[in-house]
């Protein structure tokens, strides 16, 4: 699932670039407000070059890239908010058996996340404390701007297991354990997890720092299970502005749900009040898949075949038979097993997801092959109606499968946003 056409609707336009929007995407006013509150936006705000998140621009100026994205809101930031360039995604096992300890950890994490997303160090900072003790903050992000860091938490199925934290009655039905799809070659060491944190930022050091701090705070109560670094976003939540390319060289994200399209977000991404799990209202579900690409064989594939596999041309990104990237695809003109055709909502009874994936390259494997591909992240209102039908269709028939393999997999229920300074990650579930 590396292409884009799972959004049913054209990206919506609010017609007001500065208006506050859902999904934690701040308005210009909100961003400036943070500056006024004393947070370290620094030169970005002072220079007036603040990212116009609300307007749906991914083309963030260098100065604006240092800005802070508000941590508080109805929804967690990092889902519908503008996609940053870098990712560090981490999945944790919960080691403590004590519910109170887990709650305490979530509160501590929230405090740290609130500070780090504002560009501030955690605890007593990175230096100046007792010489005999290690500093509270590891320090590698000192002096760096907030870099639009967002931290987004998710709860895995294991958390709801019977006899663990008394949450068995609260597992949402839509948080399904994924079936094994044909062709899956899942590594347990890169799959699952009781908790996840998605850290996105414009500066990779800021994202890595954030995960490192949370892992450190968690030691004893959580243990890092696996993590993934990502670069080069492969889909945007502002698809009217820019379409990035994936590692196969194709534009990816052309028809993604726009972060400003409230109607589409409410319909396909945010869990609604009547959906069955009240604690999750305003939240979402996340599917994470590590998709390895057979880079070398793909690169030896003739251009025509590459374009047939996707159902779009490589240069412009236009669907078969059309001339512009954003032209409405005519699915029947594509090969029956073309990726775009199989992934399209029209082929999947309207199934639509919000994608937020990143390219990854973890060096080279023992055979000298690039260990690279797509770290696929998809948010949806119901996994059974979002990722599952689409992936069933793709796993069965997609000609792209010759060049990709799903090697890691995890699902999470993503709680609603942290409302204010007294609120914490998971309050609606544990509180």
């Amino acid at each position, binding site marked *: 699932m590396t292409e884009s056409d799972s959004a049913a609707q054209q990206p919506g336009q609010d017609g007001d670039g500065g208006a506050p929007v859902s999904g934690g995407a701040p308005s210009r006013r909100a961003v400036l407000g943070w500056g006024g509150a004393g947070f370290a936006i620094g030169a970005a705000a002072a220079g007036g070059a603040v990212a116009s998140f609300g307007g749906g621009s991914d083309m963030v100026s260098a100065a604006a890239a240092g800005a802070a994205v508000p941590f508080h809101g109805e929804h967690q930031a990092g889902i519908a908010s503008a996609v940053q360039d870098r990712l560090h995604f981490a999945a944790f*096992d919960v*080691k403590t058996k004590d519910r109170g300890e887990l709650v305490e950890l979530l509160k501590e994490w929230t405090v740290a996340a609130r500070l780090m997303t504002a560009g501030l160090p955690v605890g007593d900072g990175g230096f100046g*404390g*007792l010489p*005999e*003790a*290690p500093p509270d903050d590891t320090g590698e992000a000192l002096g760096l701007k907030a870099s639009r860091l967002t931290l987004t938490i998710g709860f895995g199925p294991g958390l709801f297991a019977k006899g663990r934290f008394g949450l068995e009655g609260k597992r949402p039905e839509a948080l399904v354990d994924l079936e094994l799809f044909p062709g899956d070659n899942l590594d347990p*060491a890169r799959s699952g997890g009781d908790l996840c944190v998605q850290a996105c930022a414009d500066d990779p050091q800021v994202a890595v720092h954030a995960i490192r701090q949370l892992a*450190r705070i968690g*030691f*004893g*109560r959580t*243990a890092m299970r696996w993590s993934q670094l990502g670069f080069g976003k492969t889909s945007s939540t502002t698809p009217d502005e820019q379409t990035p390319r994936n590692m196969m060289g194709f534009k990816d994200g052309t028809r993604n749900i726009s972060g400003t399209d409230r109607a589409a977000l409410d319909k396909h991404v945010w869990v609604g009040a009547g959906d069955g799990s009240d604690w999750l209202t305003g939240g979402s579900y996340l599917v994470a898949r590590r998709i390895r690409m057979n880079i070398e064989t793909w690169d030896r594939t003739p251009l025509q075949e590459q374009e047939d596999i996707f159902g779009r041309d490589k240069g412009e990104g236009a669907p078969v038979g059309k001339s512009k990237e954003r032209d409405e695809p005519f699915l029947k003109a594509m090969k029956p097993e073309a990726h775009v055709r199989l992934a399209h909502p029209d082929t999947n009874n309207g199934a639509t997801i919000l994608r937020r994936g990143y390219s990854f390259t973890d060096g080279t494997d023992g055979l000298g092959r690039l260990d690279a591909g797509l770290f696929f992240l998809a948010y949806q209102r119901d996994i059974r109606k979002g990722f599952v039908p689409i992936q069933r269709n793709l796993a069965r028939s997609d000609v792209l499968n010759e060049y990709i393999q799903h090697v890691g997999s995890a699902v999470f229920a993503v709680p609603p946003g942290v409302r204010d300074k007294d609120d914490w990650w998971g309050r609606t579930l544990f509180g």
Partner: protein
Amino acid sequence: MRPARLTAIAAATVAAALTAVTGCSQKSAAGGDDVIKVAASDSACEVSRTEFPSGKVQIDVENKGSKVTEVYVLFPDARIVTERENIGPGTKASITAEIKAGDYEIVCKPGMKGDGIAQKVKATGKGGEEKRSPEMDAAVSAYRGYVVTQAEETLPKAQAFADAVKAGDVEAAKKLYAPSRIGWERTEPVAESFGDIDPKVDVREDGLEAGQDLEKDWTGWHRLEKALWVDGKITDREKQLADTLIADLTDWQKKVGQAEITPTSIANGAKELLDEVATGKVTGEEERYSHTDLVDFKANVEGAQQAYELLKPIAVKNDPELVKQLDTQFAALTVLLDKYRADKTTYEFTSYDKVGEPERKELSDGVNALAEPLSKLAAAVTK
């Protein structure tokens, strides 16, 4: 073993050395009238004066008893200021030392065994040691006792191992190898603070520097480990190295009593023991030929726990939450390690090459869970 790294305890030694240099500017108060006379017998240790001016001090000892004795001047934390061994019955000995203002003990040990007979004394004047609380002194004193005991108990075990090597008995030597290391592993940061001993007894093959010769310069336990497990035979060279190991360990035993130990160095030493586990044992690098890593692992954790328990009375006042966390995590790691031995009274652990990746991950998680809060112990003691 970590070459070229300044351990917490070594760092403390450096700090103390600097203090000593500053102290040198003080005027010496030594003189004929200032001599302290110690009359030692089999049941008494009489000192002619319990207060004396700080600076250069002379102590004249007369052994009036029937046993060979030794006399120590100790800091309140039991660190040795100066000592004189082997004072025979009816003989005299003179000891001089630079003593800063503060409280001390003069101890006679008739028969050179046991705790001895102690007299409290005081050196008066300026430039005294920084005042430590009695609790801190008690912790340091007890920890010093622990490291000394560990060294003393290690030597016979190391000797048994060396004897088996010298007898050419590969199988017996293999059995005695890991137990001979336990005392060392429990107190490694202190041992490492004597920079020269650690590389001699505990260096691994890859720890040698460029220009060093594997045949000539590689000595100690791991050199013998490789001979026993990889080569499976003992040559004259190994027999010779067994003697060298004992000589180096004897040197260690002599020095441990004088190590500069502070409450924070104990705390950070405990954390360093966990670092040893995290970097060397969990990966299986330390005992790469014998795969007895879990024995070292256990010993490192025991040493860290001993250090922690001694500091606990101080830490619990400053950070009760941390103490709770550490109690939990020490217990959890102990339970986890016990999965790898059938009998908790022995140190026979599962061979580490039989421990799978998921289990190693579990052990690593356990170490992280303990080491992170343990890194906060020094602060909790210092507050």
